[in-house]
């Protein structure tokens, strides 16, 4: 009897915690609001660390996620500006990722050096890559990307779109890159 009483005491927990269907009410951050986006730490360089001159005819587009700025260029090409902390994986890895997106094989450091161009700007030297590959579902077949490395961040300026649209936008893109400078 004593052992049974101990067993009852030991096994006294309930299986009745079933969650039924109930209406719930709660607050949430607005979608695409600063509360839903990561808060920039005070010690890191913020997006306003760079400024630029957008050429005439470029259309400012809404930004989301990690994009600092976004422009429509010539109708079918789009420029995105992204700033990531640190080396952001390194230039070689990122170039191979973009090449992979266009159905191209990766390159080694030697191959990367062979296709690297350098563009001077008021914010420093940018590494420039012009990648042409297979057309994707959205029509993108060419990426012109400039990478700027600062002490705390790596900036990516990526012009994407069909081959001919990117070709037409290249000149204004390079004017934009040369206009980069430190803010303040």
């Amino acid at each position, binding site marked *: 009897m004593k*052992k*049974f009483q*101990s*067993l009852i005491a*030991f*096994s006294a927990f309930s*299986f009745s*915690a*079933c969650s039924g*269907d*109930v*209406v*719930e*009410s*709660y*607050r*949430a*951050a*607005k*979608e695409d609001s600063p*509360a*839903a*986006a*990561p*808060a*920039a*730490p005070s010690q890191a360089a913020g997006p306003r660390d760079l400024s630029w001159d957008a050429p005439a005819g470029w259309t400012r587009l809404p930004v*989301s*996620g*990690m*994009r600092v700025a976004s422009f429509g260029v010539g109708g079918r090409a789009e420029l995105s500006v*992204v700033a*990531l*902390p640190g080396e*952001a*994986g390194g230039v070689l890895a990122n170039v191979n*990722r973009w090449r*992979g*997106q266009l159905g191209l094989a990766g390159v080694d450091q030697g191959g990367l050096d062979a296709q690297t161009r350098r563009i001077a700007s008021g914010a420093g030297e940018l590494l420039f890559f012009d990648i042409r590959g297979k057309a*994707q*579902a959205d029509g993108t077949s060419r990426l012109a990307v400039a990478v700027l490395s600062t002490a705390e961040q790596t900036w990516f300026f990526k012009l994407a779109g069909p081959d001919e649209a990117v070709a037409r936008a290249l000149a204004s893109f390079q004017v934009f890159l040369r206009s980069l400078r430190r803010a303040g």
Partner: protein
Amino acid sequence: MPVRIFGRLWRGLASLKLTIACLAALMALVLACTLTQASLGLYEAVRFYIRSPFLYAYFGDWKVPLFPGGASVGLILLANLAAAQFARLELSWRKAGLWAVHFGLVFLFIGEYVTGMFQVETQLAIEEGATLNYSEDPRRLELAVIDETDPGYDQIYSIPQGLLRPGKTLAPPQLPFAVRIERCSPPVLNADGMVAGPGAVEIDIGGADPVMSLASDAQARSFSRGKRRYRAALRLKRHYLPWSLTLKDFRHEIYPGTDIPSHFSSLVTLSNPSLGERRNVLISMNEPLRYGGKAFYQSSFGKEGTLSVLQVVENPGWLLPYLSCALMGLGLLAHFLRRLRGSVSGAR
């Protein structure tokens, strides 16, 4: 007389015959679950055979239990184990190892019950560069009525799919107005019980607003009620997080010469403003992110490698299997060492 009946029940509950019967039933259930997995899908097979109290057959409108399910057999086996332990095992330090082993086994059973009753599995599908502060249940829809009047936040009223029945009027105190379900068609589910095709619902919220048709693969509908602005959407049920994840980079590698993926990983930035926390985390196939009582596993990907899908698991009993194994291991070791010492002493 009651004492005699009670004694018989107690001996029956602690009997070895009951143990063997339960183990045989479990073997049959596991075999049936394994064989039907191909046709039912893993999720449905486990839910039907292992996690349910009974296996039912339907005769017209009659639902008849035919065989105990895994939940019932497990409960009886747990009671049998505990009764046998208290009935036969001496309560002494000499048997401490065996007590630990039995308690470890009990925790294993309890862990499975806690998992079956309380585990919540959702998915977080996020594109590169995007930030999300919610995960979604891939098996359930919700009718979300969102009050977006306040510029600082959205007030969300979530009506679960289980409450969407034609002709039903929902007027819980949380809702600012009543919602009548005019028509409802549930979503198409795949073999794993996941939403594979859209669901739809027609709702009437009264006033001057007409009946609204909502579909889970369509945009939300906006409307006003007085000075307040709302959106209504039929969507996968969301579980909001007090923090957010940003996908910085997704990588996947394939075995050379094949299309078989060999490695997935997502580099994410975890941001928790309330704690002032912001850090990068690499989530890969065997290295989940454990944060805020949830585990984020790399599950799959899409959109040619720019969309990462994370499996989000919340299980309050996730430690119980580890505790169980530790108890059983230590108990066996303690009992073995005691017996070994006894044998050595006897040999001398």
